[in-house]
């Protein structure tokens, strides 16, 4: 964005100077290009569409997923032209909520929606979207939500690490308006006039089936084929792929597909392990991704992967999607009564981040993420252990703020993954107090160059790089 601004102003100044100097002859130094103007003309190089912004890392156009915390974890947002796959939790409560946040964000930004489902009518899904939190009352709502779970420990004035009192905690509050991601109130519905003002297409699979359910029409590719044709028609007719020149402003198409792979779509990967058409779902994802890459659209798919019997299919589906986020809720499991997890409703696993036009992954180093659905807001936080007191808490608070690494003492031994540049997140921190006094910086793997050509420092920890991402190897010693 900054680059465009400077050459915009540059063009303006040289253009005006050249025009003032010589009106008749065109000099070779006359810059041809977009003049500096506030509104984008047709020849502006960066498309400026409502609700999108370019990524700060590689300039990729991003849209918000509807959850600013999830945007932050995915590296700023969901890239246009990619698929976000949500692995459903067992009772499909939180994944449908994330699905609705995505659609609500589309309505607020004025994007076109395409909702496909085999279980619920898309009109009913749109009626249940959460209401957006407006600026004036959202700050009040958020503050009272935060105050409700403030523990007395968090008000300790720090004696040793007093300089860190001013550092902000993880950004989880509403920011100013005209922003990228919006906050939503899960307890209220979106106002009807906003829904009616938006443009949406619905695909309800049972309606598209012929009235007689004979065996042939339940074959696997039938439902997926119809859905792909529908998506392709919408993209082509509305001009999201640039085929028909759009007279008005370009827009994004947000596609939401609910419970793909469930038997209601006619796919039996959830029913048997050795199914006949096991490649139907993977073919669908492959063709869908091709459609998305050539159009200005972003897609969210929720899939009941806990029902898929063949684990190889899950691996293939993960490889064929761009961003994969898994939700694991604590309902019904033994973790529901575990006091370690009592503040949260479930865990979020970021299983895959795409590598778009890039050599490195944009992965956050934090691997322990938990979510909770507060009275109104859906928040994602580092899963941090908050049961300690006194000095240990100060130390842990510093370390959490400084490095973004959570400190977590789990009753089960941690699973150590082979050190790679993706996975030095979860490190169980024993002896936190002594670790603070004498920090050992041990590099577990050789330093590497990042894609942008920076060479990492050999000594000293790298703190607070770019918000929360850290490319340096582990700060703290891995316990023996």
């Amino acid at each position: 964005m900054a680059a465009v601004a400077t050459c915009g102003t540059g063009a303006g100044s040289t253009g005006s100077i050249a025009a003032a100097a010589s009106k008749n002859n065109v000099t070779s130094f006359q810059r041809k290009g977009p003049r500096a103007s506030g509104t984008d003309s047709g020849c502006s190089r960066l498309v400026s569409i409502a609700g999108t912004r370019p990524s700060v890392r590689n300039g990729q156009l991003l849209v918000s997923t509807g959850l600013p915390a999830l945007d932050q974890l995915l590296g700023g947002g969901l890239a246009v032209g990619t698929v976000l796959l949500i692995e459903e939790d067992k009772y499909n409560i939180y994944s449908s909520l994330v699905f609705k946040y995505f659609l609500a964000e589309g309505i607020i930004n004025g994007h076109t929606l395409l909702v496909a489902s085999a279980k619920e009518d898309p009109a009913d899904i749109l009626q249940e979207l959460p209401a957006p939190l407006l600026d004036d009352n959202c700050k009040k709502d958020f503050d009272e939500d935060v105050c409700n779970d403030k523990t007395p420990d968090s008000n300790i004035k720090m004696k040793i690490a007093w300089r860190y009192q001013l550092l902000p905690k993880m950004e989880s509050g509403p920011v100013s308006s005209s922003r990228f991601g919006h906050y939503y109130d899960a307890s209220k519905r979106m106002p009807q006039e906003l829904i009616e003002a938006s443009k949406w297409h619905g695909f309800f699979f049972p309606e598209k089936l012929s009235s007689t359910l004979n065996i042939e029409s339940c074959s696997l590719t039938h439902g997926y084929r119809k859905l792909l044709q529908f998506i392709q028609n919408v993209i082509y007719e509305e001009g999201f792929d640039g085929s028909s020149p759009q007279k008005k402003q370009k827009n994004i198409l947000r596609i939401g597909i609910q419970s793909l792979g469930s038997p209601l779509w006619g796919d039996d990967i959830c029913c048997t392990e050795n199914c006949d058409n096991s490649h139907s779902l993977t073919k669908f994802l492959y063709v869908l991704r091709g459609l998305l890459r050539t159009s200005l659209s972003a897609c969210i798919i929720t899939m009941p992967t806990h029902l898929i019997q063949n684990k190889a299919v899950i691996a293939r589906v993960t490889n064929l999607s761009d961003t994969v986020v898994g939700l694991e809720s604590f309902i019904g499991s033994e973790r529901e009564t575990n006091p370690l997890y009592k503040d949260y409703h479930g865990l979020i696993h970021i299983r895959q981040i795409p590598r778009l036009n890039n050599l490195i992954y944009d992965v956050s180093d934090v691997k322990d993420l938990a979510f909770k659905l507060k009275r109104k807001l859906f928040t994602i936080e580092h899963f941090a252990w908050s049961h300690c007191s006194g000095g240990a808490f100060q130390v842990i608070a510093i370390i959490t703020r400084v490095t973004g690494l959570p400190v977590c003492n789990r009753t089960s031994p941690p699973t150590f993954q082979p050190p790679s540049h993706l996975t030095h997140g979860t490190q169980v921190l024993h002896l936190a107090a002594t670790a603070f006094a004498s920090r050992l910086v041990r590099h577990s793997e050789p330093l590497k160059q990042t894609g942008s050509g920076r060479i990492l420092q050999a000594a000293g920890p790298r703190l607070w790089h770019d918000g929360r991402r850290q490319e340096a190897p582990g700060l703290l010693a891995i316990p023996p």
Partner: protein
Amino acid sequence: MESVLALGGFVLLRDSVEWEGRSLLKALIKKSALCGEQVHILGCEVSEDEFREGFDSSINSRLIYHDLFRDPLNWSQTGEALPGGPLGALQAMCRRTHPGPVTIALDSLSWLLLHIPCTALCQALGALSRQHAHPGGGSPAEPVRVLGLFHEELHGPGPLGALSSLAQTEVTLSGTMGQASAHILSRRPRQRPAHQTQWFSILPDFSLDLQGGPPLESQPHADPHTAPVDPTAHVTFNLHLSKKEREAKDSLTLPFQFSSEKQQALLRAGPSQATSHIFYEPDAYDDLDQEDPDDDLDV
């Protein structure tokens, strides 16, 4: 048990060899019939006479029985058999447009799973629970209940998972010492699922007798491994300080000595502060005499 019938939608009754579910199914059918609802039964596993046994005539007159047991493959060609086989029978049920609440009992889903593909069954069940809820014409939603009996040992985890994800209520039959219990998992939309265990017994005339708890003879084993996990149990550093330790800690002089005014000034420091201040507090070993730098040397 009232919640099972009150919620509507698809109710999955999971039974096993030890705890059979057909009597519970018949008890639920009797309850719906007594409420004045229309009851359709798709009978596949037992004959019609055997199914109707035990019901009195008033209830029997309300039951509409679709018989798939006698001639499932339509070999007799008499025209009595249901057209289209099992799938056709299900689709015929989807097309019912009688007003009023309807209960459909499927006896059993296991038999249907052996004859039609699982995906077709799931789609038909979805259509059944949706059909009457949104009839054309804008009349208010009428509750449709689909009770499906499912023998869970006959199937792998796949069909069970698929059907339970469709079900609004899942009733698993088990029990101890001759006393049957039903574990009811009800999923309301957009709410957390609710678990409930109900002990019951079925009387000879198929009415439900709900009991409070397990029989006295069977002592429920206290689960030792459901004790709450204490996160502070196996920590390698000391989390709790005694009073003496706390006093000692508070009185410890920090290596970086400064006064609280300096601390507050530094904390308050912001863009408004134009000038910079130097705070100097001499240490115990600091030499204040500027003239002789070697004064502190012990020569």
